C-alpha cells in the first residue's frame, strides 16, 4: 500500500467537496420570463415610465433593446435589477405606435435566454405611406395633361358633334374648334400610350422611339382604350364634316357610344366588383356626360348665330337633359359607393378627397344649371335679346366649371381607390415548409408589417393528415435584433391553425418557425425565412 500523507488526503477531500459544491450549484435552472409590464400585445394610453421584465431567477442582461415604430432600435442601458425583476427606464418622449421590447439575459449558470414582447402606445402603428415617392413628376404631369385633353376631346368634341347633329342642326355650320379639339385629342390619345408605357416601366421622359415603352403602354388595359378612342375621334371628325346629313347623325351616335365604351374598358372604376354593373355604370356615366357637356358649346353658338335653331335646340335640350342628368348622377353615385367603401375613406384617402372636390364642383355646376333651366331658359324661348346673352355667358361659366371637373377627375389616374387599397393591403404571403416529419402550408395575412394573422395547415410528410396537439408560431429577426416572439395558434373549424393578434413590427426578412407538437413526446420544428413588406 502506498504511503499516505495527511496532506494528500486533505487535498483530495477538499477537491471532492469543491466538486460537490459545484454539483449543488449546477442544479439551478435557466431563467424563464414570468411577467412583462406592459403586457405582451397591450395598448397603453401614455408612454410607460418603466418597462419591467420578471424572471424565475435573478438574471443579468446581455442585450436590452427597444425597437421603435419607425424601425430604429434604441439600446436600453438604464436598468435596475430588483430581486428577480429587471426594471428598465425607457427612452424619453416615446411617440405613439408599436414598440418591440427585445431582451437577451443570462441566468446564473451562464445559459442565455432571449425573447421579445410587443406593446403599443396610443394605437398600434398604422401602415407607413407607400413607397411611391419615386414617381417621376414630369411623366405624371404629362399623363395628367394628356388625360384632360382626352376628356375635352371626348366630351366637348364627340359630344359636341353629337349635339350639333341632333340638337342644333344648322345650315350655317357649327361651333368652330370642335374639330380642332377632336384632332388634338386624337394625337393626345396616341401620346398617352407612350406616357402609359413610361409610367409602367418607371422611366423618365426619354426617346419616343423606344419600342419597349410603346409595347408596355399597349400591354396595360389602357391599351384597349387607346385603340377604341381614336376610332371614336375619327368617326366624330367625319360626322362633323358631313354635318346635318343622316349619315352624320348615325356616325355621331356611333362615335358617342365608342367613346363611352373606350372609357369603360380601363380605369379603376371599370375594374371594381361587380364588374357587370361597374362597367355599364362607367359607360352610362361617360355617355350622359358627353350628351350634356357636348351640348353646351353648340347651344351657345346656335343661340348667337342661328337663334331659331338655338331656341329649338334649347327646348329639346331642356326636355332631354333631366333624364341624362338623372342617369349620370345614379351611375356616378353607384361608382362612388363601390370605390369608396366607407365614408371615412372620403377624408383619409387621396381618392376620397378628390371625390369630395369633384362633388363640390358638381354642386356649383348643378346650381348654375338650375339657374339656366328655371330662370334663363324661358325668357330665351320668348325671344328676349338680353336673355340670350345672359344664357350664353352662363353656358360659358358652365363650360369652365366642367373643364375644372375634368382636371380634377384626371388626377384619379394617380390615386388608387380605397377598394383597390384594401385589396393590395390584404395580399397574403403563402409558403410551404417541408421536413421529413411534417409539413405546413402557411399563410400570413397581410404580408406587411403591423397586425397580421398567421395561419398554418399541418400535414404529415407525404400529404397524409396530421392532427397535432399544439402549434406555435415563433418569429424572430436577427438583423433587426428582435429575439423570438412566440404566439400559440388555435385550431379553427377549417382545420387551419391560426394565431391572431400577432404584430410583426418591422418590414424585412423574418425567420418564421412553426413548432408542431405531434404528440406529447414528439415535436417538429419547421423553419423558413419570409419577407415582410413595409
Amino acid at each position, binding site marked *: 500500500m502506498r504511503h499516505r500523507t495527511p496532506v494528500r488526503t486533505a487535498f*483530495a477531500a477538499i477537491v471532492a467537496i469543491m466538486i460537490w459544491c459545484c454539483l449543488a450549484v449546477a442544479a439551478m435552472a435557466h431563467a424563464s420570463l414570468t411577467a412583462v409590464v406592459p403586457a405582451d400585445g397591450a395598448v397603453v394610453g401614455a408612454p410607460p415610465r418603466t418597462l419591467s421584465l420578471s424572471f*424565475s431567477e435573478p438574471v443579468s442582461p446581455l442585450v436590452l433593446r427597444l425597437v421603435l415604430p419607425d424601425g430604429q432600435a434604441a439600446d436600453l442601458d438604464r436598468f435596475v435589477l430588483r430581486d428577480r425583476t429587471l426594471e428598465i427606464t425607457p427612452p424619453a418622449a416615446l411617440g405613439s405606435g408599436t414598440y418591440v421590447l427585445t431582451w437577451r439575459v443570462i441566468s446564473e449558470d451562464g445559459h442565455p435566454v432571449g425573447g421579445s414582447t410587443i406593446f403599443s402606445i396610443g394605437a398600434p402603428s398604422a401602415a407607413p405611406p407607400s413607397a411611391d415617392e419615386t414617381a417621376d413628376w414630369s411623366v405624371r404631369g404629362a399623363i395628367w395633361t394628356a388625360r384632360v385633353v382626352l376628356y375635352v376631346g371626348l366630351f366637348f368634341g364627340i359630344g359636341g358633334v353629337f349635339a350639333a347633329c341632333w340638337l342644333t342642326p344648322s345650315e350655317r355650320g357649327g361651333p368652330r374648334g370642335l374639330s380642332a379639339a377632336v384632332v388634338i385629342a386624337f394625337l393626345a390619345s396616341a401620346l398617352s400610350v407612350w406616357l402609359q408605357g413610361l409610367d409602367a416601366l418607371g422611366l423618365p421622359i426619354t426617346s419616343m422611339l423606344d419600342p419597349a415603352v410603346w409595347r408596355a403602354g399597349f400591354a396595360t388595359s389602357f391599351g384597349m382604350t387607346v385603340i377604341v378612342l381614336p376610332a371614336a375621334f375619327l368617326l366624330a371628325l367625319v360626322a362633323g364634316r358631313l354635318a346635318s346629313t343622316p349619315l352624320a347623325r348615325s356616325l355621331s351616335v356611333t362615335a358617342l357610344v365608342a367613346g363611352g365604351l373606350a372609357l369603360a374598358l380601363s380605369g379603376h372604376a371599370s375594374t371594381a366588383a361587380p364588374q357587370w354593373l361597374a362597367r355599364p355604370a362607367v359607360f352610362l356615366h361617360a355617355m350622359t356626360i358627353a350628351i350634356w357637356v357636348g351640348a353646351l358649346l353648340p347651344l351657345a353658338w346656335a343661340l348667337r348665330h342661328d337663334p331659331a335653331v338655338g331656341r329649338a335646340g334649347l327646348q329639346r335640350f331642356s326636355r332631354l337633359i333631366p333624364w341624362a342628368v338623372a342617369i349620370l348622377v345614379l351611375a356616378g353615385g353607384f361608382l362612388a359607393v363601390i370605390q369608396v367603401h366607407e365614408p371615412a375613406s372620403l377624408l383619409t384617402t387621396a381618392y376620397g378627397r378628390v371625390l369630395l372636390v369633384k362633388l363640390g364642383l358638381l354642386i356649383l355646376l348643378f346650381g348654375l344649371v338650375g339657374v339656366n333651366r328655371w330662370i334663363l331658359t324661358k325668357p330665351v324661348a320668348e325671344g328676349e335679346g338680353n336673355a340670350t346673352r345672359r344664357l350664353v355667358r352662363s353656358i360659358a361659366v358652365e363650360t369652365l366649371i366642367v373643364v375644372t371637373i375634368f382636371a380634377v377627375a384626371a388626377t384619379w389616374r394617380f390615386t388608387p381607390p380605397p377598394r383597390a387599397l384594401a385589396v393590395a393591403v390584404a395580399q397574403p404571403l403563402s409558403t410551404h415548409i417541408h421536413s421529413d416529419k411534417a409539413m405546413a402550408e402557411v399563410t400570413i395575412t397581410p404580408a406587411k408589417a403591423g397586425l397580421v394573422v398567421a395561419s398554418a395547415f399541418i400535414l404529415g410528410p407525404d400529404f397524409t393528415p396530421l392532427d397535432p396537439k399544439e402549434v406555435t408560431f415563433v418569429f424572430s429577426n436577427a438583423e433587426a435584433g428582435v429575439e423570438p416572439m412566440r404566439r400559440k395558434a388555435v385550431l379553427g373549424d377549417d382545420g387551419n391553425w391560426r394565431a391572431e393578434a400577432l404584430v410583426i413590427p418591422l418590414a424585412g426578412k423574418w425567420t418564421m418557425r412553426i413548432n408542431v407538437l405531434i404528440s406529447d*413526446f414528439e*415535436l417538429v420544428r419547421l423553419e423558413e425565412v419570409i419577407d415582410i413588406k413595409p
Partner: protein
Amino acid sequence: MFKTTITTIAALALGAGSAFAHATLQLKEAPVGSSYRAIFQVPHGCEGKPTNVVRVQIPEGVIAVKPQPKAGWTLEKIKGAYAKSYDYYGTPTNEGVKEIIWSGGSLADDEYDEFVLRVYLTKDLKAGETLYFPVVQECPDGAAERWIEIPAEGQSADDLELPAPGVKLLETAGGH
C-alpha cells in the same frame, strides 16, 4: 487510495448534471446488457409554475422498468407491446411498461427533485450511441416543459432548445 479517490472524483464530476437548465439524467453513461438506475433530475417548473406531473417515455430496447414511488405523488405505469421480443435473463419479454407517470404532486419552480426508475438496458441497444428518454413536465393551466427533442444525425444535443435526457451506452461490463 489516491487512484480510488481520483476515480471517485472523476465519476462524480462526470455524473454531475452539466446541462444545468434542463431535465437530465444524473448518470450519463451505462453499459448495455445490464440494469441501470435512471435518475431524472428536474431542476425547475414551467415558466415559474410548479410541476404537477412528470411523464417519462421508455425508449425501445429498455425493459423491466420499475419506477421508484415518491411520497405525495401518484405513480402510474402504462404498459404496451415492445417492437420485438427481448431476452431478460433467459425469459423472453415482448411487452411491458412504455410510459411512467408521476402525478398529483407539486414541485415548485425554485425546488429540485429527482424521479427514479430502475431499468434493464438490453443487449439489442448499440454501445457507443446515446439513448434518449423523453420527459414531459406538466404544470397548471396547461403549461408544460417538454424535454423531447432527439438530435438528428450530425446534430448534438447542445444545438437543441428542448433536448431529451440522454445516457451514453457503453460496452457490456465484463463479468457480472
